[in-house]
């Protein structure tokens, strides 16, 4: 494996700072960090717990030239930010990570082995508390169907040389019923299953797909009743960059009130889904950041799929593309005319 430290040090010659990871999280998992000097970059790591989408920081660093380590999924966020003229392509150096074998869901590890247990998550193998385990069982849900193993935009490539992702989707069933994030989500999943009247071994997305609208309404009501309005979903989203003027918090227009209840939380998420139409790259950071484990990606994935079906468009795959909702097709759009 080529060395992430030396790549970052090389890129540091061209930019003010580089966004990457250090192994300073609980039990040695990765935490985001920034490097400004070659000495600082000595700390940099890249392993299978580097799940965070660092592109979220780019809009806040517009006054600097920035290097960023980006997985395939993260690179779509970078491409989308370039498309939206939110960042300048010339001022960003992307170290694309190529050939990953899927990332590890550390919450899954913590849930089964305790918080802070020592984790050595290499690209191709996983050690928990010194013992090797089958890494397939701890992969993140979203990595199983990965379509973005090759970074969309990159200036340098970091060859991670992980195992191929294809074929592992069937093997990874442990805890697949949960959307892969919140520790407290099991209660929710049980509720969801009782609503759908199905067995426990099926993924939540499948259960959701089999619910009728009334069941879904109750399902969401129950999910949203746990929302504490911390706005972590918004803060973690690389595409939610209108920080000071977010309509989730303005009183004029008054889309949401100040209350913390299921109704307001639902409106918040409807706003988010709406504002991310044709922009969401499906990185899953909103769901990962949610402290109460609301499966937000059920909505985002659905919308991304609908947009792909309707307009043949995937956000963040082409910085030059025309967003589908900012244009129209006089003839082609008439399919649903009544």
């Amino acid at each position: 494996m080529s060395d992430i430290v030396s790549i970052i040090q090389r890129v540091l010659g061209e930019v003010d700072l580089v966004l990457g990871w250090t192994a300073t999280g609980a039990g040695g998992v990765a935490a985001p960090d920034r490097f400004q000097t070659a000495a600082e970059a000595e700390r940099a790591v890249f392993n299978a717990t580097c799940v965070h989408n660092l592109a979220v920081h780019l809009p806040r660093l517009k006054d600097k030239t920035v290097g960023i380590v980006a997985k395939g999924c993260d690179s779509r966020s970078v491409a989308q930010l370039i498309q939206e003229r939110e960042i300048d392509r010339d001022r960003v150096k992307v170290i694309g990570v190529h050939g990953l074998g899927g990332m590890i869901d550390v919450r899954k590890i913590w849930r089964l082995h305790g918080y802070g247990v020592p984790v050595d998550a290499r690209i191709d193998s996983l050690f928990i508390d010194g013992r090797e385990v089958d890494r397939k069982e701890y992969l993140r849900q979203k990595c199983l169907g990965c379509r973005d193993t090759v970074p969309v935009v990159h200036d340098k490539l970091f060859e991670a040389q992980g195992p191929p992702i294809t074929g592992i989707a069937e093997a990874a069933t442990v805890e697949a019923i949960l959307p892969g994030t919140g520790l407290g989500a099991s209660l929710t999943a049980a509720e969801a299953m009782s609503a759908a009247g199905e067995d426990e071994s099926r993924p939540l997305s499948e259960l959701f797909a089999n619910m009728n609208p009334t069941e879904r309404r109750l399902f969401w009501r129950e999910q949203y009743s746990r929302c504490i309005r911390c706005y972590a979903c918004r803060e973690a989203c690389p595409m939610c960059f209108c920080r000071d003027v977010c309509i989730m918090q303005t009183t004029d227009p008054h889309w949401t009130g100040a209350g913390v209840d299921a109704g307001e939380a639902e409106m918040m998420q409807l706003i988010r889904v709406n504002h991310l139409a044709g922009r969401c790259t499906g990185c899953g950071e909103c769901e990962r950041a949610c402290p109460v484990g609301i499966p937000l990606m059920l909505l985002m994935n659905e919308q991304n799929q609908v947009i792909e079906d309707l307009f043949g468009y995937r956000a963040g795959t082409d910085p030059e593309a025309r967003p589908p909702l900012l244009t129209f097709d006089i003839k082609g759009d008439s399919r649903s005319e009544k």
Partner: protein
Amino acid sequence: MAELKLIGFLCNWCSYAGADMAGTARMKQPGELRIIRLPCTGRVNPLLILKAFQQGADGVLVSGCHPGDCHYNEGNYYARRRLELLSRMLPAFGIEPERFHFTWVSASEGARWADVVTQFTRKIEAMGKMSGAEQGTPPAKASCEAGVGAPDEQTGSEDAVPA
């Protein structure tokens, strides 16, 4: 059955005039629909529709100028895409897509307007009020313990942000 709440977002130039025409011609039409006049269907933020449902509407109708007839030339073309996306997303939000209808009625189509309103109202009457649709007054917040596992541990340094 409690009275249905139906909301209609109508464009000022075609459908609102069409509805006006149906009224002045004294055409018979059901009275449940509450009409909101907008400059153009291009002004219809999908959130307006979702908010209406969320606040307890049982059905939402959007009507504008026929494609090609927009007073602003292309407003309804943008609307068509947005509303198509919205109508496909409604099931995921937990709203029957049949409760939402978007169509085109011109200023001269008073009879068509009466027909659209009648059919839409009948359809929603057949479906009934939205069950569990007491959205205006959401249930008291579930207790915090309900879903939160070990909150202190969850906010571990995994999510630490570069300063």
